[in-house]
């Protein structure tokens, strides 16, 4: 990686819109005019509308379905049931984790909100009216609502349809070295433990999921507009699930109104709409309402974690043990690389040099919605980061140290990179103390500690939270990371047209991250073609190269790398053409920001535009025409972004309300391609982290009724509650990424929850309060305070 940092280069980059330029977004125009094109905006001639009838029970046997009243409503075309799908072998589908999931329930319903039948009608109003008339005869069964209940002896077996499944256990998985870890704990002078629960939350993009399936009975062509973060992978899975010929399937993922992991899985609605379109011969639109989205699509977390850190006489961490119990809902539908049952949780050693670690993970079925998608996180990195940062806070309290000191004492040191962690990751680069220092200076940490001491003396509650996260993002490499067998590479196809302007086609898919701008900037940097001259296309499987899609912060690490590499291929081909034009030896051709010249004659240049024109008009003998290329990039390693987040809170003793006064976030994501967009990503992630820490929650009552099934109960912060963020940065490039960039889309959601919670605990720890599980609602804080006799 070498980014020229001279002033002249900076000016050139600015004009070009190259790397490091906060270029205003190319994609904005259509959104500003209300011309964004989302799935629900797709209208096709003859299009029908589908509404899903869902189970009101968490666990019940289906004794019968009577759809006659619904069918009698004028305008109703069909009522699809599981029985009908079973005739086409479509009643069940595979999940991303190698399990099966009911498309429409046939035998039992296994969670409240499960898909039972679909009504297809001329308008959505008619479909919804008729859906209320579908009568399902249920025999309620005992519901299992926690993984602890699920694995207890005698629990009702939820997945009794699975051959050989006699309990509710899904997996047992271990990582790290048990023996070495036991030895570390045996010689520890102090062991600090933490038991905590990361509750179920939901990505809830503002646009819900949906599709328009258009199957042409004559040609057999299947065009499916769908809310997909991974259109190519989805096309392959559709071919496998529905038995459709893959060359006839075209998935178009148009503008997405956010994703955050929610649009990674395949949901029953997509499958039924597609099947219905095939059977009826007309396009079928299915768009979730918010309740559909919250009660049935990919949730995140629901992770019970307990563990300990072994500490030696010098205050050094020498071992880490963690036990996990995961609530996966009724179907194991987590989105994660197939080798890793608990995702990448084994990044749990975090930013710390811990020589021995052992992780034990167990997963359980419950009568709750399936999911386990990564809500803005790279496969359970969020849970891991939360756990270690909360445990370090506990360790600091037990050691009687400032939490900053505990961290500085145990950080992996800058000279230790590349660093191999006890659980097997090779961290590419980092400078944790540097990021910490920037954050402390921005906050004015020492002054605030003084203020806190004064306030505490007056009985006022103020806390400062620290979290220094390290993420692992940008999967693959493909040998180690795959989803349903598909290796996690990604792709870029670059076509430079004769006039020197071009199209970049990607296998990843923006959900608002600004790919149309950022990726054009990479081309600008590499080829010297202004970003404004590069059109970026994504999301249409007929017109983009195969890729695994956008999630787990992988677009820049993988798709961005592919873009740089393909641009370099064209640059090299350009040298052959330049040599021809200059009548020089190719070895003597130099290239600098869009200009070719012969060594020693820097003033006689051919621009990349000249070369592009020549590629179609004036080629050397034996060279293929055109200036086009495609790259499938398999990263040699993941990238490891990191940072330090600091939060200051004030707590109202009378009500338990927590007010976030300050939030400083210092991120190091390597080289920033478009700093404005990077900061936007961080702002969004810090807000979602704030929501998770303080209000976002999906919970269930004892019968398995979902609480948090609409935005009246699933609380998303508004501008009023959301803190004002202060951002800082350090830049430690990734040594293996072509432009030194790391993923950043999820850092803030991964890193910030622990910072918020640590701030609350820091305000209360002198009272003996050591943990409050998220979301930290005012009633929980009040109860903790009252338990220690604090009152107003």
């Amino acid at each position, binding site marked *: 990686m070498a980014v020229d940092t001279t002033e002249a280069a900076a000016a050139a980059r600015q004009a070009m819109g190259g790397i490091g330029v906060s270029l*205003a*977004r190319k*994609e*904005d*125009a*259509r*959104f*500003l*005019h*209300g*011309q*964004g*094109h*989302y799935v*629900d*905006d797709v*209208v096709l001639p003859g299009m029908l509308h589908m509404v899903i009838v869902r189970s009101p029970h968490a666990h019940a046997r289906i004794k019968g379905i009577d759809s006659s009243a619904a069918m009698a409503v004028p305008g109703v075309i069909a009522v699809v049931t599981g029985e009908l799908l079973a005739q086409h072998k479509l009643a069940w589908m595979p999940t991303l984790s190698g399990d099966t999931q009911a498309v429409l329930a046939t035998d039992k319903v296994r969670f409240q909100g499960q898909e039972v039948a679909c009504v297809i009608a001329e308008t959505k*109003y008619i479909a919804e009216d008729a859906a209320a008339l579908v009568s399902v005869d249920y025999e309620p069964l005992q519901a299992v609502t926690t993984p602890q209940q699920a694995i207890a002896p005698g629990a009702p077996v939820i997945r009794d349809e699975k051959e050989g499944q006699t309990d509710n256990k899904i997996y047992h998985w271990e990582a790290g070295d048990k023996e070495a870890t036991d030895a570390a704990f045996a010689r520890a002078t102090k062991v600090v433990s933490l038991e905590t629960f990361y509750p179920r939350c939901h990505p*809830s*993009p*503002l*646009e*819900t999921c949906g599709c328009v399936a258009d199957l042409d009975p004559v040609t057999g062509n299947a065009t499916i507009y769908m809310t997909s973060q991974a259109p190519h992978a989805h096309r392959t899975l559709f071919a496998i699930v529905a038995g459709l010929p893959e060359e006839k399937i075209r998935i178009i993922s148009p*503008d*997405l*109104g*956010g994703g*955050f992991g929610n649009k990674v899985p395949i949901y029953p609605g997509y499958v039924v709409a597609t099947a219905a379109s095939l059977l009826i011969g007309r396009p079928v639109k299915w768009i979730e*309402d*918010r*309740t559909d989205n919250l009660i049935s699509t990919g949730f995140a977390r629901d992770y019970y974690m307990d563990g300990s850190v072994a500490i030696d006489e010098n205050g050094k961490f020498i071992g880490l043990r963690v036990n996990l119990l995961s609530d996966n809902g009724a179907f194991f539908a987590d989105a994660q690389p197939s080798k890793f049952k608990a995702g990448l949780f084994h990044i749990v050693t975090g930013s710390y040099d811990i020589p021995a670690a052992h992780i034990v993970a167990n997963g359980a079925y419950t009568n709750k919605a399936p999911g386990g998608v990564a809500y803005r996180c790279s496969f359970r990195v969020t849970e891991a980061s939360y756990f270690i940062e909360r445990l370090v806070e506990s360790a600091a309290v037990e050691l009687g140290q400032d939490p900053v000191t505990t961290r500085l004492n145990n950080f992996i040191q800058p000279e230790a990179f590349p660093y191999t962690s006890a659980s097997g990751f090779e961290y590419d680069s980092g400078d944790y103390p540097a990021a910490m220092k920037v954050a402390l200076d921005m906050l004015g940490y020492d002054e605030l500690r003084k203020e806190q001491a004064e306030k505490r003396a007056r009985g006022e509650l103020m806390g400062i939270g620290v979290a220094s996260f390290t993420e692992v993002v940008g999967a693959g490499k493909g040998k180690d990371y795959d989803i349903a067998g598909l290796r996690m590479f990604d792709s870029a196809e670059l076509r430079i047209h004769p006039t020197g302007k071009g199209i970049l086609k990607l296998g990843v898919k923006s*959900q*608002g*991250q*600004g790919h149309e701008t950022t990726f054009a900037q990479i081309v600008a940097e590499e080829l010297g073609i202004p970003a404004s001259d590069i059109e970026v296309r994504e999301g249409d499987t007929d017109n983009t190269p195969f890729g695994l899609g956008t999630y787990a912060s992988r677009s820049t690490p993988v798709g961005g790398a592919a873009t740089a590499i393909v641009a370099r291929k064209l640059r090299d081909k350009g040298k052959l053409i330049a040599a021809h034009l200059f009548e020089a030896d190719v070895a003597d051709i130099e290239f600098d920001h869009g200009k070719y010249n012969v060594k020693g004659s820097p003033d006689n240049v051919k621009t990349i535009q000249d070369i592009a024109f020549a590629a179609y008009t004036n080629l050397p003998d034996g060279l293929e025409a055109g200036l086009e290329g495609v790259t499938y990039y398999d990263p040699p390693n993941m990238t490891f972004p990191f940072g330090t987040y600091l939060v200051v809170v004030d707590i109202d003793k009378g009500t338990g309300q927590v007010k976030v006064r300050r939030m400083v976030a210092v991120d190091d994501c390597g080289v920033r391609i478009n700093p*404005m*967009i990077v*900061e*936007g990503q*961080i*702002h*969004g*992630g*810090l*807000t*979602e982290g704030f929501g998770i820490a303080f209000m976002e929650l999906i919970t269930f009552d004892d019968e398995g009724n979902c609480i948090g099934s*609409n*935005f*009246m109960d699933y609380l*998303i912060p*508004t*501008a*009023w509650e*959301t803190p*004002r*963020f202060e951002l800082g940065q350090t830049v430690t490039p990734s040594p293996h990424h072509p432009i030194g960039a790391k993923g950043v889309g999820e850092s803030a959601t991964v890193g910030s929850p622990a910072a918020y919670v640590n701030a609350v605990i820091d305000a209360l720890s002198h009272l003996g309060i050591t943990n409050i599980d998220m979301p930290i609602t005012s009633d929980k804080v009040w109860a903790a305070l009252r338990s220690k006799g604090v009152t107003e």
Partner: protein
Amino acid sequence: MKVTFEINGAEKSVDVEARTLVVDLIRTKLGMTGTHIGCDTSNCGACTVLLDGRPVKSCTLLAPMLEGRKVTTVEGLAQGGKLDAIQEGFHAEHGLQCGFCTPGMMLVGKALIEANPHPTEDEIRWGISGNICRCTGYMNIVKAIQHAAAANAAENVAGVA
């Protein structure tokens, strides 16, 4: 039933069921898809339109309630090919990511600075608190509205001079 109203300056007369929600009327009947549906329970504001200049949630309005009134949607912001100051502000300050909340946010922002040309950050945050954005963390939306307010102020000064 027949409902007659003005939308983005043009009079429309439509025949709809009384229960039709205004957001569905706009999206389906009028084919203007810039007004979005995000939550169905009047919590998110993706469906915001201006009703006689005041921002309201069109998912919580029945079509016949429009009779004789004036509606502005995002499609009515740009005039004669020129972006409104609020649109310029959102572009310049990176006030949008996925774009789904953006029409509602811009309409609220526009109404806000029309009623209060020099809003404080708190006033802006309070003013947009009926609209959810899942992407931006609101920081740049606040800046976008400030940007538009400043541009309007500059234009007014220029207009006076």
